[in-house]
């Protein structure tokens, strides 16, 4: 039995039945990480000893006839935006390079309680800000399908580690598309649940009203399995929804007959790569063949999604990231020593900068040194947009457009059950291709941000490949709390196709 070839569902069953031990399973993935991650950089930290000890404890408990959690022995990689008490949590930022949280995120706690084996923390864009993973302060993630290309972001490490078989399941976070877009570019399945479905406690905030945690795996069925553990109300998160957790895996079995899927003509307008368009149209055809009906719907305000998102998210980020001031934890500049120049990062302040006080100097220098350029750009955007005299024109207006976008979805879901379309306008782009053009980079989220603004769920899964052999992602969006339907539709598609089973050639 080769654990790397098994789905998460099968792995959990195999461990439970004793066909494979949790230690064997963990060792297999750790070995794969050793073999290939030097080329991919999916992990910022691999906890070899911790994972093996955990796996051994699960095996011992199984031998002793003790109870096993629903994810017993399943290796899971966790995006480094989620707090872990036994591993540093850096958000891929110099600011938190040595930060060890005193607690586990609620999601991590639930994973551990379900006997999952956390193998390490995955790379990401700094503070989850980016669409290519090139904003990591520590290492650039390479797309396993083509190492010269970006894996997408911000959950690029989580997507790449699943694509390259370094973990059967990873946890990501999605603020504007950060689970779905890298899932599409890496040829895996990623679910961004309805806002409030998964507790944000212990998720290092980027934009609190948009952030949502979700599973990334090879298949919708594997995502459903993980959702049963991580979803559910948490009294420690005021925005957590009080709903009971559906039996996502059992609900997969209902047929698709009569499913109405919406198609938005504007998704196929200028900017969509023709190869991606072809793959997406073929997926619509496949759904039709499976018994679904396709209907044209409109989301008239979706075109304002990117500008709206790039006001609301930076506004919240400018406040959420204020705590990184060098006073209590995280990076603190050495007093009076000036800036450390960071090659290629342009962190050096203007010569001759003067400060009001030693305190102001500590703040300015700590933040100048600790944050990368994209984080600084968004803090400045948000600070500006919230400033007196600009608030109404920017932030307040963005909130109004957000309500219109939400209303568009409510109207559309009167007519259809789900809305389908491309996840990303292109397949994986080359590393460096967009990194000097922030606006081009912001557009990679054009099909995904609206779900975050509306607070609804979305799932991305592979629906074909370009001629160059790069995966193409199909996105389904559903009304609030429609995750069972999203997972079922994606699972149905995956029972009829094998795109999700294709693996990149990344020899050991």
């Amino acid at each position, binding site marked *: 039995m080769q654990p790397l070839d098994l789905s998460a569902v099968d792995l959990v069953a195999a461990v439970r039945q004793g066909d494979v031990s949790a230690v064997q399973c963990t060792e297999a993935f750790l070995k794969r990480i050793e073999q290939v991650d030097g080329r991919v950089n999916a992990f910022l930290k691999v906890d070899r000893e911790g994972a093996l000890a955990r796996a051994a404890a699960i095996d011992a408990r199984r031998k002793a006839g003790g109870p096993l959690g629903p994810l017993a022995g399943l290796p899971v990689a966790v995006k480094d935006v989620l707090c872990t008490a036994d591993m540093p949590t850096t958000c891929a930022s110099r600011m938190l390079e040595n930060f060890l949280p005193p607690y586990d995120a609620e999601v991590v706690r639930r994973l551990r309680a379900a006997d999952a084996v956390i193998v390490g923390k995955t790379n990401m864009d700094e503070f989850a800000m980016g669409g290519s993973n090139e904003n990591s302060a520590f290492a650039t993630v390479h797309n396993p399908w083509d190492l010269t290309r970006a894996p997408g972001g911000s959950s690029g490490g989580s997507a790449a580690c699943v694509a390259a078989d370094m973990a059967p399941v990873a946890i990501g976070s999605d603020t504007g598309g950060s689970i779905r877009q890298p899932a599409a570019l890496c040829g895996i399945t990623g679910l961004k649940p309805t806002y409030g479905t998964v507790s944000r406690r212990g*998720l290092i*905030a980027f934009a609190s009203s948009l952030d949502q945690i979700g599973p990334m795996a090879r298949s919708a069925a594997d995502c459903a399995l993980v959702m049963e553990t991580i979803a559910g109300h948490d009294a*420690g*998160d005021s925005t957590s929804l009080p709903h009971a957790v559906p039996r996502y895996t059992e609900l997969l079995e209902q047929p698709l007959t009569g499913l109405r899927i919406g198609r938005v003509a504007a998704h196929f307008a200028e900017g969509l790569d023709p190869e991606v368009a072809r793959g997406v149209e073929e997926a619509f055809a496949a759904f039709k063949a499976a018994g679904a009906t396709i209907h044209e719907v409109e989301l008239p305000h979706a075109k304002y999604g990117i500008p709206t998102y790039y006001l609301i998210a930076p506004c919240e980020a400018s406040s959420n990231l204020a*705590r990184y001031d060098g006073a209590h934890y995280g990076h603190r500049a050495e007093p009076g020593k000036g800036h450390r120049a960071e090659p290629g990062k342009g962190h050096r302040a203007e010569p001759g900068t003067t400060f009001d006080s030693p305190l102001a100097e500590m*703040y300015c220098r700590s933040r100048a040194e600790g944050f990368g350029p994209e984080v600084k750009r968004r803090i400045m955007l948000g600070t500006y947009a*919230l400033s007196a005299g600009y*608030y109404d024109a920017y932030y307040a207006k963005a909130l109004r457009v957000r309500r219109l976008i939400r209303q568009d979805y409510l109207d559309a879901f009167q007519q259809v059950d789900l809305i389908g379309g491309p996840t990303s306008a292109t397949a994986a782009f080359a590393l460096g291709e967009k990194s000097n053009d922030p606006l081009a980079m912001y557009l990679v989220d054009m099909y995904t941000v609206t779900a975050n603004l509306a607070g609804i769920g979305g799932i991305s899964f592979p629906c074909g490949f370009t001629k160059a052999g790069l995966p193409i992602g199909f996105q389904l969006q559903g009304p609030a709390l429609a995750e069972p339907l999203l997972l079922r539709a994606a699972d149905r598609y995956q029972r009829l196709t094998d795109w999700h089973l294709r693996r990149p050639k990344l020899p050991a």
Partner: protein
Amino acid sequence: MTTPTATAAPYTTIIGLEVHVQLQTRTKLFCGCSTRFGGPPNTQVCPTCLGLPGSLPVMNRHAFDLAVRAALALDCTIAPFTKWDRKNYFYPDLPKGYQISQYDLPFSSNGQLEVVDPKGAFARNVGIIRVHLEEDAGKSMHDEAAGTADTRIDLNRAGTPLCEIVTQPDLRSPQEARAWLNELKLLLVYLGVSDCNMQEGSLRVDANVNLHIPLAGEGGAEGRVAKTPIVEIKNMNSFRSVERALAYEAARQWEEWQATKAELGTTPKQTRGWDDPAGVTRAQRHKEESSDYRYFPDPDLVPVTVTAAEVAAARAAMGDPPTVLRKALEAKWKISAYDADVLVNQGRDLVAWFEELATLVGEGKVASNWMQQDVLRTLNERGGTIGEFPVTPAAVADIIGRVQKGDFDTSRGREIFAAVLASGRPVADVVAGMGIAAVSDDDLVALCRELLAANPKVVADVRGGKEQAAAGLIGQAKKKNPNVNPAKVRQICLDLIKGM
């Protein structure tokens, strides 16, 4: 610098107050940490109040309910829908880089609290613009010892629920401001909303003050009113400081007006700190960027709704505020407004003590006199609360009853009260131990005859129409027998002289 007296001042002092009170909750506003004062630094903290990455706030409903109680007592309207906003600024005692507060939709607004000077010097109804709830910051301790000038941060206080009460500029003198603050404190303590302990920082006051100066118009006609720039005063550590600082500031603004004629709107609002030992306010450094707090709704919290039924329940559970209680005591026990004020101002427990005493005595006025002249005086001397006072209302009522019966006079009663207080023994024991027994009328007459025989001048004076000369006999009577009733001695002597 001299302060012009209120009547002589050629201007009106306009004062508005901004008061912060910590609510008496066991736990903080957005986490479960203790709010106890005085713990070792940074021992009452958790990821949320430390502002650690990933931590989230969850509202303490008890704190919200207490704040609603305070707002209702201040006659405010409670908003059916309220939300939380972030006030963004950098400071080391603010670990998140923002304070969770309320900006454009405070939970309550538009109230009032009246203050009436019991001596009749003023009566002022002060409008409340708004009351909102927010989290307190931590404390910065600037350690300048040993030349290190280190700043140490204690975050025990960070996240403690704080009510901000903003008044209209309705106060017209420093004395009024102080009296109003006393009334506010009394109210909040009565309702169990806050202990209002200024030393521990659970009540803090900032004041806004300027002068309205009537100018003479053309040809002696009434002119316009000039307004001096508004100054905000900070760093006042007691109500007395508030009064002194406001008096100083009014006089300072008057002098400045005479020198500069600068009016409101010509300069940015100034903040001045009160230097208590020096007795002056000093300009604080003005930081332009500090004024833009970039408020926006806190996305980590959900809005709070308050139903009419919840407001009604809060109102019902509130208990009588001091204003109502004063009037009730006046009416029930037939005591003066001044007496009711003194009693009520001592707190709810003392009022209960008084009412028990008055009930036993069967009369309010005598009970009130004893409360003020004996109980309160000794309580003030001894310190402590009425709950710790060693003499019971029953014992005082016993003493009062004996005085009323004529066993001894009031001054002798006071000595007994003092002896009961000192010894802790029952009144009857003390009375017996002091050899106090009622003097029989026969004994009294014999004593008076003896005195008259020894004091022919007094007898002559009384006969000559000077009845008050008899008073000289009372002291002698008390020397011979300390238990005699002076009024009786006087009456018997007068009767004997008449019969001579």
